[in-house]
């Protein structure tokens, strides 16, 4: 951010011009040449990331006649004014390297004097460590509550450390955790010590050259049809020189929890996803071309992921992306072409399939208006390792437009897609058309409200002889209104949807949800009850399923945070109109804690508390009710230190 702004301001403020234009300043004749850069001082290399900044102007100044910008950020409103100058303590750490302090002093006649000071910061090492520990002991509990351990101990050490030397910078972020309890622990957690996650990064930066390597828990983002949002453990390298970039990564096929499952650095080609991408930009970054190649294998199921297609997949994809920005954002063009070779199950006798996908996109905005047009094609066998969200066998377009006015905002979109893109005569072709609109009325700032609508029609064509035609219409309607008043927010939402099955099975369903969500959020108290009613109806059998949910989230503190209290409760009632189900569920979790020492010895925050939980299920159909409770003594402490 600061680099961008610095460049921006660098174009505006070229040189120090003070002393040439000053005349008739606020209190007479103050020249820019008379401004003293007290701290850190011109050209000084500060060894802290938040160096105090102070200037002596020689005359009284205020934010009415002064503009101060640090690295392009206007900090005038955060200055502390002295009798003849000002001081400023950076809110956030300044990055290592050179910094620019830009001052403009306005005279009463409208003229101004500018001054630029330079300094730099060099923090060789900085570290922030947070240690947290909690011990829970059951005081009493229901006899059958076996899954609640009598004793539970957990501790976490979180650390973020950066080390800088010249043009080199190293960084590390880790969470080291220790768990123990009197019962077994659900996988993937394990008893004992484990490095839950980590990220180690190294960077070399000089002028326009940036080299970077990251190892640990990464998130890989390339393009829509290649790799998007791939969160895995591995190694990533990045090279940037002016408009040229070259990236590479090798990550584990499975999502891992803890270092015991793997460090991500094994580089076993049978368990990796790896890829390279490179690109360059021209015409002042308005034209960008990028090529991506990804290959590897992927396990269908791993931590946090369920996939019905079990087994190992293998494949590769080669993609090209072209982006061109025209007319200062009014027209952005994008084209992507990809080819994949994918084997959905390496264990079967079938080999992989090759296919292609491509996308053309145009979007832009002009004033209050925005638009987007997309045409997409994804082949029937187009699948990509590391991007399971892709919808294959699909071709169609989407048109979107929006207008944002002071009192009104309207967004509309229309799309039409079809499957069986190769028009296989043995299969029907399904056309899906969608029209949606969302309208917001903002005339009253404390009472924003809106309406939404969506209609989707799925219809079959090219139905083979003997096949059944298919048609489903889905309509969705929504309304929302909020009332905002200080810490209060009263929200009301209503949604209704109907799915009209026009096939022979005629399985129509409706769904309606009404929710009332008042919230009160203040410094020492938050209160957010939630009341929701849902009715879904199987129109074929005329059976309603009603769900009434009431939740309460209350938390606050007393005596300047010495005592804290929390209560979370849920009531849920489900019943069907044919009397096959009628069930009430209650759950509550409450805690009161006494923080008997705050920042003891400067960093330790111990507390002792009592926590209780209560759950009750009342099945009125089978005439069964179960309840359970547990009461805990909770000892916890956190400590943090940074340098």
């Amino acid at each position: 951010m600061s680099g961008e702004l610095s460049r921006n301001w660098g174009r505006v403020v070229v040189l120090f011009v003070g002393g040439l234009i000053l005349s008739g300043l606020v209190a007479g004749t103050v020249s820019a040449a008379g401004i003293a850069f007290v701290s850190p001082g011109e050209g000084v290399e500060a060894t802290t990331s938040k160096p105090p900044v102070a200037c002596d102007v020689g005359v009284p100044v205020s934010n009415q006649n002064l503009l101060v910008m640090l690295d392009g950020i206007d900090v005038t409103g955060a200055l502390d004014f002295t009798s003849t100058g000002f001081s400023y303590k950076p809110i956030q750490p300044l990055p290592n390297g050179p910094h620019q302090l830009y001052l403009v002093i306005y005279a009463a006649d409208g003229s101004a004097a500018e001054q630029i000071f330079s300094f730099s910061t060099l923090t060789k090492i900085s570290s922030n460590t947070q240690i947290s520990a909690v011990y829970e002991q059951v005081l009493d509990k229901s006899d059958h509550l076996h899954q609640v351990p009598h004793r539970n101990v957990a501790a976490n050490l979180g650390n973020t450390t950066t080390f800088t030397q010249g043009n080199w910078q190293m960084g590390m972020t880790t969470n080291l955790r220790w768990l123990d309890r009197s019962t077994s622990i659900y996988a993937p957690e394990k008893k004992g010590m484990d490095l839950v996650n980590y990220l180690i990064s190294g960077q070399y930066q000089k002028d326009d050259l940036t080299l970077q390597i990251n190892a640990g828990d990464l998130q890989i983002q390339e393009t829509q049809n290649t790799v998007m949002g791939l969160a895995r453990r591995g190694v990533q390298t990045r090279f940037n020189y002016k408009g040229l970039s070259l990236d590479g990564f090798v990550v584990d096929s499975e999502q891992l929890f803890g270092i015991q499952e793997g460090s991500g650095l094994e580089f076993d080609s049978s368990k990796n996803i790896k890829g390279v991408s490179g690109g360059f930009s021209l015409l002042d970054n308005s034209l960008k071309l990028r090529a991506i190649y990804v290959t590897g294998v992927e396990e269908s199921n791993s931590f946090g992921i369920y996939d019905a297609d079990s087994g190992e997949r293998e494949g590769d994809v080669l993609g090209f992306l072209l982006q061109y920005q025209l007319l200062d954002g009014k027209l952005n063009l994008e084209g992507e072409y990809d080819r994949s070779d994918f084997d959905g199950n390496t264990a079967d006798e079938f080999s992989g399939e090759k296919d292609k996908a491509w996308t053309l996109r145009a979007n832009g905005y002009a004033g209050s208006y925005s638009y987007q047009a997309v045409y997409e094609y994804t082949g029937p066998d187009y699948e990509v390792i590391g991007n399971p969200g892709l919808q294959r066998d699909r071709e169609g377009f989407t048109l979107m437009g929006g207008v944002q006015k002071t009192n009104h905002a309207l967004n509309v979109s229309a799309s039409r897609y079809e499957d069986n893109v190769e028009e296989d005569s043995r299969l029907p072709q399904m056309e899906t058309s969608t029209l949606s609109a969302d309208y917001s009325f903002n005339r009253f700032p404390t009472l924003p409200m809106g309406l939404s609508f969506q209609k989707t029609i799925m219809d079959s064509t090219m139905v083979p002889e003997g096949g059944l035609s298919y048609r489903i219409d889905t309509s969705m309607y929504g309304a929302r209104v909020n009332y905002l008043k200080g810490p209060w927010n009263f929200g009301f939402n209503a949604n209704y949807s109907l799915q009209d099955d026009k096939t022979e099975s005629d399985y129509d369903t409706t769904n309606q949800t009404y929710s009332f969500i008042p919230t009160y959020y203040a410094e020492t108290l938050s209160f957010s009850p939630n009341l929701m009613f849902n009715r879904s109806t199987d129109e074929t059998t005329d059976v309603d399923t009603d769900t009434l949910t009431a939740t309460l989230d209350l938390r606050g503190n007393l005596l300047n945070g010495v005592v804290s209290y929390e209560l979370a409760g849920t009531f849920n009632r489900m019943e069907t109109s044919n009397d096959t189900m009628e069930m009430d569920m209650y759950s509550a979790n409450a805690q009161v804690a006494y923080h008997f020492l705050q920042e003891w010895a400067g960093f330790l925050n111990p507390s002792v508390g009592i926590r209780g939980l209560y759950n009750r299920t009342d099945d009125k159909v089978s005439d069964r009710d179960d309840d359970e409770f547990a009461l805990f003594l909770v000892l916890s402490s956190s400590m943090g230190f940074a340098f």
Partner: protein
Amino acid sequence: MKRILSILGLFLVLLSVSSVAKAEIEGFTVLPSPATAGQLVTATVTVDGALTPSTVSVDFGDGSAPSILAFAAVTTDQIRTATHIYTSPPAFAASYLVQATPDTSLGGSMWEATLVVNCPTQVITTAALPPATVGQFYSAQLLSSGGVFPVSWSVGADGDPLPTGLTLSPTGLISGTPTQAISANVSFEVTDSCGPTTTVKLLALSVSCPALNVATSALPAGIVGQPYSAQLLSSGGVAPVTWALEDGAGFLPNGLMITPTGLIMGTPTTYGLSVFAVNAEDSCNPVAQIEEKDLSINIDTPVTTELTITRMQLSFDNGRAETTVSRNQPGLRVVADLRFDGSGLLRGYWEVDGRFLAPVNQHLIYGKSIRLTSPAVPFLPTFVEGTHRVRLVITDPENEIPFPAALYYVTAEEATADLAPLRTAEPRNHAELPFAPVTFNWETAGSATTYLVEFFIIDSEKPIAAAFTKGTAYDLPETILTDSFSAGKAYRWWVKSFDADGNLMGVSELSHFVFE
């Protein structure tokens, strides 16, 4: 006369003396005669009076100990009996000399009787044998009567041998697991311990295979282009059962095949209903059983099939199913990315540590993956330190899938984030402003000490201008206005709040405006 009286007196004395000497065994019988081994034999001794208590020894002649019969000193006749059971004679029939010997107090001699003892008549009482089943354990007890135990059973040579897998024990137990279907007439012989004597009987023993049935009555639907697998099941019969498609009775959907083990597998390439018949042939020996069943498979397209969740991935904003947050961290949410086939109404709920958090009800339409986010109110509870498991449990469509869990760990460190809302106030969202210096205002009930205002052009995440301020307003200077903004363009802005240590406390929603 005196002489006559003397003679008479002498006569009487002699008479009385002679009458005392006559106390002896008067009768001796042994019945029944002839007798049968194992039958109760009774020897009866009659004594016609005794002057003193006396005994008679009865010896049944088979070497067993004699029976002693006691008689009292009475003048009347006394009858005593002794019983005995002859065991197996050395031959089919044998004669025994039964003797009754008086003791010395009795007069008379020993009495004897000859008793013929025959072996009993032996009969096999088992009238018929229960049928046996190939592959199933069989057990039947042969029974006989009349013979003298112990008896011994065997299979005679006159009939068929026992079916393979069955054996006959000497005690008459037929047991084992037959391996072959057969109807046999087996000659069973039983030999008792008397004589010995052997009795033979021909009994029919039928061994059949268990009836073979095709247990599968319906097959699940498949989806074009997606791997299909269904196992045909049989009951009864003799394993292994071999499956095949019945000739001339329809076809499997294109792309599917049936293996000899009954697995229908493959990837269907066409859609629609396929009606066919399968036959199952078991390994019944010597004649296999064949059972035929009409079945069908409906192949849907991913569009037309019932709503089915095919993939679920949970993640926090770091992209992983795991995150670490501070205590009382507001706004923690998790997202579930779902892929599904078909269309329909999805019902389920979010749960944390097994506790119901919020319901989920939404119509899904085939054609794209969907992202469901846990509710903003209430957000995931963060006031209890330690690990928490959050899941999206889907109740409709009914799934027996292992719903994945995401873990979040709450540290004891208190979050610096402010629950109090931070809202942009002026200019209002989507305001159309003249291209001139303008004041930006926001409101909060929190305890922030410093704010950062950032401005963006649409579709960019890099701010074009920014400012730190201690108050809840920012006057955009003309210098920055002219340098960073343009007339006729749309912009977004938001505010971030910080505490005195520079910790981020809150971020407002993005607000839009246009410079005309």
